């Protein structure tokens, strides 16, 4: 009974948070609004620049992959929100890590993750009793056997509603279990977000330098390519927040450029010019600022170049 109460409460929360509200909480912010995911939203440029076999078949001589990364930079990294909208631990985001292949599309690569095992001994010696897995699997199989009815049911019959039903009633009548309920608030963030046992702390990327190996200069071996705590990425521990910060750095030049273009379009160009004229007097101050911003740009460019080098497994493809 208590489990049902909790579920009802979560259903209600889900509706309030996600379905009943029409307001766009982003719209009053200086940060651009969040576009809903769309079929063609993110990789439009990618589509325009590649033949249809690029993604479907794979293999063969790689082409257009720098363009792909630029698209990714523009559509994913440059659109990462600021701290306030991302949450203190960037919990708005989750991450997918795509690793290098063994097949030499670029150079072969392998990745070794290191994760926190502090307190694991203590956890393992705690004798918490759970229901045996057997009963879990019995339940799982029963659920999956019920899938057979989906194949003969008319899809519309599964969602019959009355005209006066409000959204909560509809939702409870036929809750679609392929949508999750909200995380209960009392549960703390997991190892992906807050350092604790099982938090990934670092990974080391290895690669095989095929040119050196094939030419006989090197024996066959995988060698160190980079680790996430290097002086360029400076990822202390691999919680989501750290990656999101890196993502912001990778996307910043694109974001700044877009903002500049938007400002120009909005007629702010003139104002800016006026401001610049006024500032001419304080030339030395300006040039100091300029060199500081140039330095910042250089640093960001260096991070992006390093990232591309690693994306293509030190094969020099990007050049």
């Amino acid at each position, binding site marked *: 009974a208590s489990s049902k109460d909790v579920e009802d409460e979560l259903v209600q929360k889900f509706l309030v948070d996600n379905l009943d509200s029409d307001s766009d909480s*982003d719209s009053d912010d200086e940060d651009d609004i969040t576009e*809903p*995911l769309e079929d*063609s939203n*993110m990789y439009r440029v990618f589509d325009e620049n590649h033949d249809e076999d690029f*993604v479907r*078949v*794979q*293999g*063969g*001589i790689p082409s257009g992959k720098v363009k792909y990364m630029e698209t*990714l930079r523009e559509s994913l*990294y440059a659109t990462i929100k600021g701290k306030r909208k991302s949450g203190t631990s960037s919990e*708005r*985001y*989750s*991450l*997918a*890590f*795509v*690793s290098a*292949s*063994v*097949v*030499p*599309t*670029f*150079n072969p*690569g*392998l*990745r*070794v*993750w290191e994760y926190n*095992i502090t307190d*694991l001994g203590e956890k*393992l010696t705690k004798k918490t009793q759970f229901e045996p*897995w*057997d009963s879990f699997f019995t339940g*799982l199989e029963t*659920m999956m056997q019920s*899938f057979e009815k989906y194949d003969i*049911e008319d*899809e519309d019959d*599964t969602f019959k509603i009355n005209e006066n039903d409000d959204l909560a009633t509809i939702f409870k009548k036929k809750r679609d*279990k*392929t949508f*999750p309920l909200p*995380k209960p608030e009392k*549960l*703390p963030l*997991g190892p*992906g977000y807050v350092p604790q046992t099982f938090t990934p702390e670092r990974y080391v990327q290895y690669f095989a330098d*095929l040119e050196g190996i094939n030419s006989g200069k090197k024996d066959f*071996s995988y060698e160190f390519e980079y680790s996430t705590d290097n002086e360029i990425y400076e990822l202390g521990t691999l919680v989501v927040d750290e*990656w999101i910060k890196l993502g912001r750095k990778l996307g910043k030049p694109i974001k700044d450029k877009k903002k500049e273009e938007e400002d120009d379009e909005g007629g702010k160009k003139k104002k800016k010019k006026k401001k610049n004229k006024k500032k001419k007097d304080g030339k030395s101050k300006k040039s100091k600022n300029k060199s500081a911003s140039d330095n910042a740009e250089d640093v960001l460019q260096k991070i992006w170049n390093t*990232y591309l080098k690693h*994306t*293509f*497994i030190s*094969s020099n493809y990007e050049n």
Partner: protein
Amino acid sequence: STEKGEQIIHGRFLHITDIHPDPYYKTGSKQDGFCHSGKGNAGKYGDAILGCDSPMVLMEDTIKWIEDNLKDKIDFIVWTGDNIRHDNDRRYPRTELNIFEMNQQVSDLMYDTFKNKKDPNLKVDLIPSLGNNDVYPHNLFSPGPTLQTRELFKIWRNFIPASQLHVFNRGAYFFQEVIPNQLAILSINTLYLFQSNPLVDNCDKKKEPGYKLFEWLGYVLKEMRSRNMKVWLTGHVPPNEKNYDISCLRKYIVWSYEYRDVIIGGLYGHMNMDHFIPLDSVAAYKSIRKSLKGK
């Protein structure tokens, strides 16, 4: 554990992906002929950027290197598919049998390398997942049980817990407790979410295997949460708008978001490029809201 007895946890694991071994690869052949014939410069271990698959020796020596350098230092191996050459040379078309045989060969090599010499259990757990080239024809994978899911279970029998046979036969997904009652790896069959699989449409219709996959995922995650276990999600095709059907992608993202106390992250291959993908839960919920309001 009862299965393995005492186990030393090192706090390290390996991710290996897209081996693509090609038995027709010939050293010194022509690269524009997929390194299968002619006279050219194809290197012994293959060449970066020139477009050929992996010579067998690259796969064998890679696994040997892992055995020599990593085997005793890692807890488990996440292995995200594509264990056969691409279907790109018309002179050497791939058959279903070729695919099964090569997958068996790679699977045997992995098992022999990482097994426990004292008993049939693995010294290092291996968690495979299905690549879009591991199926015939490539990209096409229908809901199970089918010949393909049965064959796959046979090929991976040393890696998949026997208790999950029936579930696996339906969808080629399963999970492995790599640290009993603490940490699990969920192997997702991403071909059910994959836009390029013409046998599936979306993840919103109940008939679709992607819909069923999310019911399975929900059931498993709920149990993991109740046991206070943590999980990694793994699979071949990574989640992005190009790869996944939008109805599948947004579900993947909101599950990751609502189980942020349980899910550590996702590990994928397929793209051949090293990068990370941030997934925005707000954008995913907006997309869901838009789609539900339409109804």
